[in-house]
């Protein structure tokens, strides 16, 4: 957890006939981050042949992603199965593709039916628009030549033939409104159709014994009835469309098992082929190499031996040593699940260099303390924590990531703690503070308080001291990293090294001395010289010493198969120190000094924003309470007062929560990380059954 996970480099040689079993074992283990053998030594290039390009990997991947697409087509989406590797299922890519094609064709058929229904809906909507434009339909019937979309006819049909006529008209976008009063042998009908269907409809009408008549006043002509009829038809068609969707859902549900098996087979084969794409070959053997966590070394070795029935050669290399010296080491961060949100914050910035300190636990502590100091209210913290918990529940339900909500929950919890320390509960002092009364100080009652913290300057002082602690911790972590790397020169003379720490410590002490003496007196001159002047002068040695260290040119041994990068020859480059070089050293020293003094001062003072935001938080709540009191009546708080307070609390939680979160992140990323974090790591990416890329 404190450092990145130690890694080991594996080189293995197995017989060609054991390829499948070894591949299966490597896939089962799911820990190897493969590299090319050529990365270890250029000599491998001519000794082994690269594996033939595996077009099938790409095709398998494509089919797998296509299968996943069908999972997402279902409402709700079908679940991807967990992969088990008891057996490698055989996969026929052509058959798989045929199956998916046939499924796609069925789905296309359903969508096409929906589309045809949609066409009918649009035509009916057109009729509805046109009908809506009429004052009443009988006048529309007279004006049939004006509106050229619609054909409005009125007439009578024998009662016995009416239902047949109605049925045959269902095939056309139409509105049929019969008279309510079917007396005698005939029924009066108002018929609205589209003009384009005139000839076919007229045939049907004559078959049904239609007679054109002008309808009397009481006959159907009610626009509302026509519109209702059309709306009913449209709703019926929409329902049919929904049934199509249900049919699609049932189709996919019915194929779920087959699709899951297909997907599993494709995925396992894809991973299988991907592993084999990293193998190099000789006539009878295969060779492969990769990084894995050191803790898995024994397990992997035993697995390979078992899979190859001990017909293997295995070599282990430590990172940064021997032939593996130039090979980039992947970084795995092993933090407990509870720190996952903070690990994501770190990864968002960069991955730490291999072997260096994993910042995650420190970021977790620093972030939460910063947030708590800026957002110190137990009530507000409780709201945040509850929002976080609710968000986690919803995210889990929707199968989405809950990291953000977990972070919110933690921040809320930190705010609860600091709220209790400051005695702040939704902006009121419900209980006495365990540390100091933040509200009281901001409201101007500091003079009445006992204790060490009585005014805003004391609060600022707390945050400055906090900042010094964070920066000091950053420097310490940097020293640990440098000691691990054995980079002694940088450890001694860099601005983040011991000299930089000395200057920072001395500068901090001098600043406190100055403040402590009422801003009137600096420490004695000779003391200042020893504390600040001396290390500043020593810093001047950095340039020349680095020049001497780096002024050797590594000459490559060329493309010789017998050589490796570690056999590089070095000799002095012949560069000499001259006048210009000395000026360079001097300028570098000046810039470095300015950077150290101004940079450290700025970084330290930057932490005053923690106080600033905390003060803003309290001030906003004081303001809202004052507004609430202004709205109060003679008997106390009115309804408006409570509304103001509720809205005010919501605003403060939202605004200050966002500000505090962002500022905490900035302080970590800039003021903290800049002291020690070297984000040059490359991610550890083993080929694993659990990956979802």
């Amino acid at each position: 957890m404190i450092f990145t996970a130690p890694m080991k480099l594996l080189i293995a040689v197995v017989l060609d006939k054991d390829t499948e079993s070894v591949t299966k074992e490597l896939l089962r283990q799911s820990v190897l981050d493969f590299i090319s053998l050529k990365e270890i030594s250029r000599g491998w290039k001519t000794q082994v042949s690269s594996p033939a390009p595996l077009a099938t990997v790409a095709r398998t991947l494509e089919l797998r992603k296509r299968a996943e697409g069908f999972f997402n087509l279902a409402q709700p989406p079908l679940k991807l199965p967990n992969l088990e590797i008891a057996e490698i299922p055989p996969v026929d890519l052509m058959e798989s593709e045929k199956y998916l094609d046939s499924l796609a064709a069925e789905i296309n058929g359903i969508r096409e039916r929906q589309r045809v229904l949609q066409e009918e809906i649009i035509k009916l909507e057109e009729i509805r628009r046109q009908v809506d434009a009429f004052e009443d339909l009988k006048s529309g019937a007279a004006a049939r030549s004006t509106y050229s979309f619609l054909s409005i006819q009125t007439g009578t049909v024998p009662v016995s033939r009416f239902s047949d006529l109605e049925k045959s008209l269902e095939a056309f976008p139409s509105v049929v409104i019969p008279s309510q009063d079917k007396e005698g042998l005939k029924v009066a009908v108002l018929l609205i159709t589209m003009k384009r269907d005139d000839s076919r409809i007229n045939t049907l009408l004559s078959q049904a014994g239609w007679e054109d008549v002008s309808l009397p006043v009481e006959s159907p002509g009610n626009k509302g009835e026509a519109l209702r009829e059309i709306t009913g038809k449209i709703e019926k068609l929409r329902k049919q469309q929904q049934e199509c969707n249900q049919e699609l859902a049932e189709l996919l549900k019915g194929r779920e098992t087959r699709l899951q098996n297909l997907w599993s087979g494709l995925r396992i084969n894809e991973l299988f082929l991907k592993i084999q794409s990293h193998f190099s070959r000789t006539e009878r053997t295969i060779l492969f190499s990769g990084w894995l966590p050191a803790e898995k070394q024994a397990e992997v070795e035993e697995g390979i031996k078992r899979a190859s029935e001990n017909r293997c050669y295995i070599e282990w290399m430590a990172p940064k040593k021997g032939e593996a010296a130039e090979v980039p080491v992947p970084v795995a961060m092993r933090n407990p699940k509870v720190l996952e949100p903070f690990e994501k914050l770190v990864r968002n910035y960069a991955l730490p260099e291999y072997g260096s300190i994993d910042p995650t636990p420190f970021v977790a502590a620093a972030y939460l303390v910063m947030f708590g100091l800026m957002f110190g209210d137990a009530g507000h913290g409780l709201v945040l924590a509850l929002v976080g918990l609710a968000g986690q529940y919803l995210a889990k339900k929707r199968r989405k990531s809950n990291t953000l909500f977990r972070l919110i929950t933690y921040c809320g919890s930190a705010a609860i703690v600091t709220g209790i320390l400051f005695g702040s509960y939704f902006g009121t002092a419900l209980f006495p503070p365990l540390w100091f009364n933040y509200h009281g100080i901001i409201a101007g009652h500091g003079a009445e308080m006992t204790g060490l913290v009585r005014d805003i300057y004391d609060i600022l002082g707390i945050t400055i001291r906090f900042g010094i602690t964070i920066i000091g911790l950053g420097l310490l972590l940097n020293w640990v990293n440098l000691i691990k790397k054995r980079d002694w020169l940088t450890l001694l003379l860099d601005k983040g090294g011991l000299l930089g720490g000395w200057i920072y410590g001395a500068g901090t002490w001098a600043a406190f001395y100055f403040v402590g003496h009422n801003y009137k007196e600096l420490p004695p001159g000779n003391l200042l010289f020893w504390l600040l002047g001396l290390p500043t002068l020593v810093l001047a040695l950095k340039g020349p010493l680095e020049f001497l260290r780096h002024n050797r040119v590594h000459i490559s041994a060329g493309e010789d198969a017998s050589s490796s990068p570690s056999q590089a020859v070095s000799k002095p480059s012949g560069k000499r120190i001259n006048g210009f070089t000395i000026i360079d050293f001097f300028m570098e020293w000046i810039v470095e000094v300015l950077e150290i003094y101004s940079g450290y001062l700025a970084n330290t003072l930057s932490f005053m924003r923690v106080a600033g935001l905390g003060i803003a938080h309290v001030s906003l709540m004081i303001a809202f309470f004052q507004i609430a009191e202004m709205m109060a009546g003679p008997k106390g708080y009115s309804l408006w007062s409570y509304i103001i307070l509720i809205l005010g609390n919501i605003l403060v939680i939202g605004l200050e929560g966002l500000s505090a979160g962002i500022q905490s992140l900035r302080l970590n990323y800039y003021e903290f990380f800049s002291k020690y974090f070297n984000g040059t790591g490359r991610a550890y990416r083993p080929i694993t059954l659990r990956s979802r890329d």
Partner: protein
Amino acid sequence: MASPLSRYAFLNAKLKARISKITSDEKIDQLLRAKTLPEAVQLLKGTEFEPLEKAYVETGDLRMGEYVLYVREIELYTELQHFVEEPVLQFIRALSLRYEGDNLKKALRLWFDKTVRKRTLEGATGYIYRKTIVHGFDIDEVIAAADLPALHKALAGTPYSDLIARWGREIELQKSLFSLEIEIDKFFYKELFASLERLPKQDRQIAKTMATLEIDMQNIDWLIRFKNYYNLPLEKTLPLLIPYGNFKDLASISSSYTSGSISEILSELLKKHYSKWQTLLGKGSDSVSRLTLMERVLKQITLAQVEKLLGGYPFNIGIVLAYFFLKRNEMQTIMTILNAKYYNLPEERIKSVL
């Protein structure tokens, strides 16, 4: 007048956040590789185009999805109007006239099909935008107009009624909407240039550059199509072009225009004002592929200018213009791919037109 910072700070942050969400090349590749239309559409779940996916799932009709997108495109403008004040507000309103003009042209084509060509419309009006964009008129009344006087009446109270009055006779004589449609486009640009004159100086320069570029690209496109499809003589093309652009005199292209070579015409047109893009012109094998190349070149020129705007000073009208262009481009790309999937066009063919 408010400072550029106060005018554009919020808008800049908002639009840049939206621009960062524009569909990635990776997603476009996934869409291209999808085998069928339903598979392509489901890739849009969880993206900005989810409304299209929802519309398709509900109706099975891609045109309905396209309509939903079209409505969204119009709403980009109407929505942005809430965040700006005069004179930027009236400039954005003028920009949205483009859609009003397009919508009116669609309606006029339907009217023309029904009234002049005597065709039935078969549900074609279902995909027309019916709400007011800038000027209020009833689109159904336009489509349903029985004749030119009725059409004129349907557009009463809008600037388009004057266009109908002036060009109605031409429509009847030539049995074509060609001239009227060009006049509608010209009207849009006239209004655009009128509105940008009221912008502050820096905004005015940027808007003018972009508008002139767009007009030049449009005129180039038209010139080449006039030659390729209609074989119009050069002297008849100049009155048809949109004014305000750089091409006020076409004498320099007369010989290449006469020869009919698209590459030569394009090269001559680009020579004076867009010379560095001449190198993009290759030698296509036929006029269709050359037209495709031409469209790509013109789009590249506009894209380069947009990228310049995005990389420059952020608090000016440039961010708004860049946003509109990129969003329009994005929607066109997505719809091209989906329509191609509907017609089962192969991936390579689709790529060739993107």
